[in-house]
């Protein structure tokens, strides 16, 4: 092979449109966010570099609490989505009449604009008029009207349930597709050997769809971490910060309080967390695949 092998520019040309828009909309704003995080940028026209002051300030002000809450919120939400998604996929994969219709009907929460779905949930959680409080009272579970978004714990869980409602259909359909990719003869061989349905699920389905579960968990975790519309429309981070996740905290600091510098420092933290999180995750998957648990 010659040392001066001519570079083939064709694949690079193919990447130009995607790169261009990514540079303008993502790369430059990201670099600018990092720069701003070292300044005291605000509404005033004068801006100075302040070193790590924004980061120091951030950690002295109950920020660790926000981080912990964000992870707790994300873990709960993703766990629900994956568990409900696996169960849903198993049910929709069963060869029973009506499953095509059921597959069609589980998707609307994912199809409709997120904000519109969340408006409706805001009504559902209403204590005076909403369906949940109403039915709860009728069934004797609630003594009187209950405002789900007015108390810290119930607001926290309510935002998670809405997030699960929106995120589960995609998880379900993705895992369903993975299940349908499992070769049928594996099941038939196991069936011939007298393996029960539960055993077949545990020893054939689950191991074979594990890569899809892992991929979906990671994607879902990233989306959930970045989830903004749901919490903002339902509670704006309240009551008393009970639903203030990192992304809500960032938006409140930067947009509502006009502290661009401090807001940017928070945004940088989010990116760092997600990068660490993904890196850790990929390492874990690689390790698992070497051990042979995941093919």
């Amino acid at each position, binding site marked *: 092979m010659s040392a001066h092998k001519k570079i083939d520019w*064709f694949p690079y040309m193919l990447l130009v449109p995607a790169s261009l*828009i990514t540079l303008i909309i993502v790369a430059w704003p990201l670099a600018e966010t990092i720069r701003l995080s070292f300044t005291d940028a605000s509404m005033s026209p004068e801006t100075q570099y302040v070193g790590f002051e924004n980061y120091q300030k951030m950690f002295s002000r109950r920020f660790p609490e926000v981080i912990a809450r964000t992870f707790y919120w994300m873990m709960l939400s993703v766990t629900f989505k994956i568990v409900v998604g696996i169960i849903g996929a198993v049910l929709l994969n069963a060869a029973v009449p009506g499953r095509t219709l059921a597959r069609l009907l589980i998707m609307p929460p994912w*199809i409709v604009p*997120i904000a519109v779905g969340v408006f*409706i949930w805001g009504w559902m959680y209403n204590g005076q*008029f909403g369906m949940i409080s109403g039915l709860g009272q009728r069934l004797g579970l609630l003594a009187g009207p209950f405002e789900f978004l007015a108390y810290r714990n119930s607001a926290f869980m309510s935002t998670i349930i809405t997030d699960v409602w929106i995120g589960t259909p995609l998880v379900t359909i993705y895992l369903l597709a993975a299940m349908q990719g499992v070769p049928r003869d594996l099941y038939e061989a196991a069936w011939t050997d007298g393996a029960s349905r539960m055993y077949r699920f545990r020893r054939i389905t689950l191991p074979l769809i594990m890569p899809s579960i892992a991929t979906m968990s990671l994607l879902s975790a990233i989306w959930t971490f970045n989830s903004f519309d749901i919490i903002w429309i339902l509670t704006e981070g309240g009551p008393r910060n009970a639903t203030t996740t990192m992304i809500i905290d960032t938006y409140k600091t930067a947009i509502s309080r006009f502290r661009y510098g401090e807001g940017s420092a928070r945004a940088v933290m989010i990116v760092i967390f*997600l990068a660490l999180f993904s890196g850790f995750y990929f390492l874990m998957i690689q390790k698992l695949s070497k051990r042979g648990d995941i093919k």
Partner: protein
Amino acid sequence: MIDRYSWWEYVLIYVGLALFLIFALAPFFEAFLVSLRPLDGLFSIPYRFFTDDMSFDAYISMWKSVPLLWRYMLNSFGVAVAVTLFGLMAIVPAAYAFARFEFKGRDALLGVFLAVNMVSGAVLIIPLYKVMQGLGLLNTYFAMIAPGTAFVIPTGIWLLRSYLMKIPRELEEAALVDGAGRVYTLVRVILPVAMPGIMVVAIATFIAAYAQQFLYALTFNSVNELNTLPVGLFQFFGRQNVVWNEMMAASLVGILPVMIVYVFLQKYIVAGLTAGAVKE
């Protein structure tokens, strides 16, 4: 035979499916009920699903209360279509490059694109505002289209790349041997074969673009005529004395277009995911 279930398995499956569907559809049912109730009949003790005073009046009066509802729906649809088209123009060539060519920095570049998935518009909102301002795009459709497009590209590349990798190389090699140019080969040989995969990506992109029309329109646009459906409704919603029945009626009518698109194209989503994107 393997697909035969005992009676209790049938019961289990249908009860499970019913619970799943109730969870997924209850909010729409509730919205529909509210849209039928007169404003002074919203509150009832004990809670009842159906009351005697229900009517479809809100579906008529809402066009007066939200005069721009048509515009919002059209805007949402148009923005989603534009994001899908611009997105595909970036996704298709990029996915082809990653699927078929060996070039320096390929894996690193792919990693960079996938990393875009980790940031969201909400994180970058301050500098994004400056970019839109600098390009003179504030209060134009492009302020909603451009950020939307950038954030659908990574997932699109990922989905389409794995689909393209399954297309046999012989197809292109035959075309190239016949003297066809590489652009010609991409457009006339690969694209037709890859159409099912492209359809899946297009639908997924469209739905994502339709779902995420809140933040950008809320932040970059202040012209009411250009608002997308969620923001248009949000502003109607945020006023004093919310007319709840009209609000719910407008929400349900507003989501009709995307629901219709979904019903007609849904087979591509399940079939496409099954055939191409997931299976290894």
